């Protein structure tokens, strides 16, 4: 489903060159849930953002569902409709109501009729458990509710892949659960997911595979059991001692 070959992304600024992503090759299969963990600044968010073209690559290759993102003639907008993304800061559109947030891209990008788009939006709001808030503006919602709307908004485009960029890091602790619950449900339904998170519990329970990144490099990967119980690399062991 997703294939990256020797992906590199360097930021150059003020005379410094930062290798944010430094040669990552990975293959994510359909319906697989991959959790990427690692210390801050390890390049995991940048890697995720490369997967839907929010960051331009320095070198390497990404293929999503058979489409080469790095090819010149690829229309990134067409790829992005198939790849949903959920952000740490929710990024809901503050000037639109909850329902409009979910309806807008369906109308503009998928060219759906209003009634069809609204029906889909209501169905998804039901699914994420906030059907009663459809007329509210995002500012009146709690963080957890906003993030669930953001998930619904991404799902409304019927994506084949969902990317989650630290979806619970900006939430109050008591709201983390409700968002993770929605994500678990998605995983059970067979969605292909790539999740950058610090929630080790989620990784352990839901992930099919865990990738551990440090300084832009893929240090270790494996099933959750392998990763949490018998890590091989020294760096992984040190990280796990800190977070567990």
């Amino acid at each position, binding site marked *: 489903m997703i294939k990256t070959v020797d992906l590199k992304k360097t930021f150059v600024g003020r005379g410094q060159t930062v290798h944010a992503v430094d040669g990552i090759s990975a293959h994510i299969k359909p319906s697989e849930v991959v959790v990427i963990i690692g210390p801050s600044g390890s390049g995991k968010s940048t890697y995720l953002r490369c997967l839907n073209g929010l960051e331009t690559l320095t070198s390497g290759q990404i293929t999503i569902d058979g489409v080469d993102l790095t090819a010149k003639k690829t229309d990134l907008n067409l790829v992005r409709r198939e790849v949903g993304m959920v952000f740490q800061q929710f*990024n809901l559109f*503050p*000037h639109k109501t909850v329902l409009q947030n979910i309806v807008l*891209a369906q109308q503009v*990008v*998928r060219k759906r009729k209003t009634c069809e788009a609204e029906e889909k939006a209501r169905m998804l709001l039901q699914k994420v458990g906030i059907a009663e808030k459809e007329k509210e503006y995002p*500012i009146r919602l709690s963080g957890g509710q906003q993030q669930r709307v953001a998930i619904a908004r991404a799902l409304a485009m019927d994506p084949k892949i969902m990317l989650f960029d630290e979806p619970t890091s900006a939430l109050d602790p008591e709201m983390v659960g409700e968002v993770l619950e929605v994500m678990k449900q998605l995983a059970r339904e067979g969605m292909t997911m790539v999740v950058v998170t610090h929630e080790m519990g989620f990784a352990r329970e839901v992930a099919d595979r865990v990738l551990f990144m440090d300084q832009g490099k893929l240090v270790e990967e494996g099933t959750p059991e392998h990763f949490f119980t018998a890590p091989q690399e020294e760096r992984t062991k040190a990280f796990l001692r800190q977070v567990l």
Partner: protein
Amino acid sequence: MITNKQIWPWHFLTAFILFMLCAGLWVATEKIDYTWRWNRVPQYFLYHDEGLIPAPFDGRVASLSKIGDKTQIKVVDEDGEVELFEVDSESLQVSENDDLFEGDSLGSASEWRAGPLMVGLWTTLWISAAASIVGMIIGLITGLCRVSKNPTLRSLSVFYIELIRGTPLLVQLFIFYFFLGTVLDISRIMAGISALAIFAGAYVAEIIRAGIQSIPKGQMEAARSLGMNVPQAMIHIILPQAFKRTLPPLAGQFISLIKDSSLVSVIAITDLTKSGREVITSTFATFEIWFVVAFLYLLLTSVLSQVAAWVERRLAVSD
């Protein structure tokens, strides 16, 4: 600390200070022996115009019919052609079946006409409105170019903004009128409107740019991640939010534009300011007319700021 709820003494103080200011002005004008003639002002807003109506051709009065205090005269010429006229009944000078020669007076008709100050106010209003609309469009396009990734668009917009902001509007008006007006053969009104619009456009562009840049990057990313292209994201996501944030400075800019439009009087456009000057030459009521002109500008600008405040309140529902 407990909030002091008694604010009326402060309002009283404000009123008192304003009153003292006015009193001071009054005393000062008393000293210079100026005779105020406010009664001369209203006729320059509206006046009663009485004009004789002559017969247009040789003919005959076919019929007279009274409607209220007006009389309708039906005139028929030798070929049977009919024309209708309306005069005040009191001034009627013909009766039925009278023979008429071209130029004979039928009577006089009076009507209310707008005086020079009204006409000037209207000119100022529509020149400012036209310049605002064009200026907004120019500013929006330039503002978008200013944040564009294309270096040529960016440099051109910076060049335009710097050029316009760095030169006085008065000089720009002269250049537009004398140079561009001659070269491109445009009328003085067009020259005036385009100078104002291009001047305002530069400032609007900077306001729009600031507005766009004040929207968090995540908004564009969220829009793009949903598959929208840049124009779609701009139209549906970024610009509506930027517009809301920039409404107060935009309103300020357009209020400035109304005031700056007074400069077009230098290229002989009869706007409010020029009308004021013309009225002064015939009345010598210098003080009164300038006060009235100032008040009329204040009227226009305060209506605009009220409208802006209303729109702002309407857009505040999502806060």
